[in-house]
């Protein structure tokens, strides 16, 4: 079947501008790339909002929640889920994650009754159950796209058992699985016992064009940091959710070690999350609170400018399936330091790598870049040539091949 004749049911949890992280960004770009090739996409989200910049697909709002109410539920954390079994969940209780998911499934049931999709493409555990239900009803092939597993989110083997169960079920029921990196594929094989042949790795890309929207860096957004920069300081940035998955405690300790050897560095931590207070306290415990800047959650101009003010971007994740922010940082002229546990490292060469626990090594790398103009500029320049080659267009081609490789339900 031609991609241009395909009806794709995309089951997602967020889209820009109402996203709280990379999942929404990735969903947006892959849908757009597929739509450019002629695919007709029905994209389901669990809240009601207008998306004036999205005209290439049909967006279906499954509940009357506002995007803000949905943030309250947490887009990523399963910690708010607790132990409620599904049968007990009330689909009229939209303050409860399970209630929202149940409502979401009801909505998908209605949608597939109206129009039968050729392919069902479900993103992460939040929508997996809806994907399984849609497959039951339509017999269309189900693709489970894994952006992150419960092992990543919890930063350990002790995630929420209910979420593990949902993920396992989805992986078993899926006709094909897409993992965003080899790291994620490895987790699916090792922790869930899924046969490697069932899993296809498709790395995320970056849409460089979307950044060319007339953006000009505003030096006054982080004026104090700019004044430090002028005085010879190097700005080390990270933009992330402050959760255990992101390895920020190790990052902070490495920052203190770096400061003890070299004075002219400061750290910008943009974002928010449950570890925020702990990190603020830790910076004071380590005696570097004066060198650490917390912005809170940033979006729009403050978000773009946070990348631009930085010289070095660190991705310190304990377990990061992909890590789009590293590519965004590279685009805004940062040298990258990325943990070996981050998938984005698989598509880049001109970066520093370290194991998330290796604080000495991270400190060493930070000082190395901060004290060598040559190293700094060659890392920045060379990484640019690398991420430019990864496009969403190529991602769409890979999806197309995967959709077509499935016998069941697809007639060519």
């Amino acid at each position, binding site marked *: 079947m031609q991609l241009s004749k395909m009806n794709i049911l995309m089951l997602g949890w967020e889209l820009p501008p109402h996203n709280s992280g990379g999942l929404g960004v990735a969903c947006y770009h892959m849908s757009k790339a597929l739509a450019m090739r002629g695919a007709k996409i029905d994209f389901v989200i669990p809240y009601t909002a207008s998306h004036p910049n999205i005209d290439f697909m049909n967006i279906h709002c499954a509940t009357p929640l506002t995007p803000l109410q949905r943030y309250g539920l947490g887009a990523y954390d399963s910690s708010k889920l607790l132990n409620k079994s599904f049968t007990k969940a009330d689909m009229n209780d939209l303050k409860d994650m399970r209630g929202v998911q149940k409502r979401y499934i009801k909505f998908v049931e209605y949608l597939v009754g109206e129009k039968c999709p050729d392919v069902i493409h479900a993103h992460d555990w939040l929508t997996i159950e809806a994907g399984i239900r849609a497959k039951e009803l339509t017999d269309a092939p189900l693709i489970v796209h894994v952006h992150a597993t419960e092992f990543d989110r919890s930063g350990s083997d002790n995630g929420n058992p209910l979420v593990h169960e949902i993920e396992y079920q989805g992986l078993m029921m899926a006709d094909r699985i897409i993992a965003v990196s080899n790291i994620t594929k490895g987790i699916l094989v090792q922790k869930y016992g899924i046969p490697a042949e069932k899993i296809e790795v498709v790395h995320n890309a970056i849409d460089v064009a979307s950044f060319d929207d007339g953006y000009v860096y505003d030096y006054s957004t982080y004026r*104090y940091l700019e004044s430090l920069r002028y005085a010879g300081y190097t700005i080390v940035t990270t933009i992330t959710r402050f959760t255990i998955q992101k390895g920020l405690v190790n990052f902070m300790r490495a920052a203190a070690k770096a400061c003890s050897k070299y004075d002219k560095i400061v750290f910008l931590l943009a974002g928010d999350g449950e570890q*925020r*207070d702990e990190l603020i*306290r830790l910076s*004071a*415990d380590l005696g570097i609170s*004066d060198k650490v800047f917390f*912005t809170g959650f940033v979006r729009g101009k403050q978000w773009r400018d946070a990348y631009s003010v930085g010289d070095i971007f660190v991705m310190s994740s304990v377990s990061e399936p992909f890590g789009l922010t590293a590519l965004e940082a590279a685009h805004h002229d940062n040298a990258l330091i990325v943990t070996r546990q981050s998938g984005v490292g698989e598509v880049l060469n001109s970066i520093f790598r370290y194991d998330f626990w290796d604080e000495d090594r991270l400190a060493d790398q930070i000082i190395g870049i901060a004290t060598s103009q040559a190293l700094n500029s060659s890392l920045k320049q060379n990484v640019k040539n690398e991420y430019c080659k990864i496009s969403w267009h190529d991602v769409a081609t890979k999806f197309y091949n995967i959709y077509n490789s499935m016998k069941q339900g697809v007639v060519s």
Partner: protein
Amino acid sequence: MSKRGIVLYLHAHQPYRVRKYSVFDTAINHDYFNERVYETRSNNEMIFKKVADKSYRPMNQVLEKLLERHPEFKVSLSITGTFIDQALSWTPDVIESFKKLINTGRVEIVSETYYHSLAFFYSRSEFERQVEAHKSKIREIFGVETSVFRNTELSYNDSLAKWAEEYGFKGILAEGWDPILEWRSPNYVYRPAGTNNISLLLKNYRLSDDVAFRFSDKGWSQWPLKAESYTDWVNVSLGDKQIVNLFMDYETFGEHQWEDTGIFDFYEDFVSRWLQNEYNTFYTVSEAVDEFQPVGEISMPHTVTWADSERDLTAWLGNSMQQEALKYVYELEEDIMRSDDPELISDWRKLQISDHFYYMCTKWFNDGDVHAYFSAYDSPYDAFLYYMNALRDLRWRLYHKHLTEN
């Protein structure tokens, strides 16, 4: 023979709270203390006006009435410089009513730091400048001199007493804390260890806190407290000793204990009852020092305060955030003073107000709920971030001033 006396001392203070001052304000906006949203706990004007309505105006009326009615009634007040400045901006009538009280000659002003700061523990030079600034402010506004000293949060140790003696004070106030007093009673005048010419007045914390903390506590076995029983307790405690020192926040009346608890009527009633006995009276702090000879020497090598169940400074410098913030603010002293820029110096001093560090306190549990009540922020961590951003901005201004001048 001396009359049996109560020394009533009330402490009036309002800080300049730092507004929700983010990294995006740093090096751009320099108005750290000017929260734009009115109805929020970090808006200084809103808080001051609210407390003026609830406490300063009604309590000053009560004090005025008591002074008119009872020639024996006396009271001592400490009023911080930051209180006076804010009152002058927003409620000048409150200053006028204080003037009225002081003009009776039976209301004494106690000396302290202008900025309600912990400067004594970080910089002796800055500390003395703030004491001097407070003295001149009191002279300027109320036309009186001060002769008895109290340090921020009643923090006290032997070296403070020595300093106060050398500085020329004849009395100093401290907490009458059991582990220090051991078998001794707080109801006498004492001499600080290692001094010759200064007297120490110790707060009777049980009787003070019955009013300041427990008065409206319905879980307290003595609730509701009547003036009659309280007068009895004071009588029993005093016995044939010298004085009972009742030290508390001014805001006890109307703000910590709201009007509907009956606190104002209780106090009027108590004063009248106490003075029904012709052998009873009230003393101001300096009168108490003049009237009674010290009965013995008291030593407090470690700092004691009137705060929390530990009676120490841990609510201000117990955690690393507080220690860092204090370190950074006092590190600036030399550069700030050299700048000779009144605005920089004033903002720097406002950043020394001890309340900033109190808001960063993370001792939850028993003491924590008191802290949360008095905090202007969502959490100690927010307090710390806003403070650090303001401090960095101050540093930025200082740096740019040097750049443009050189």
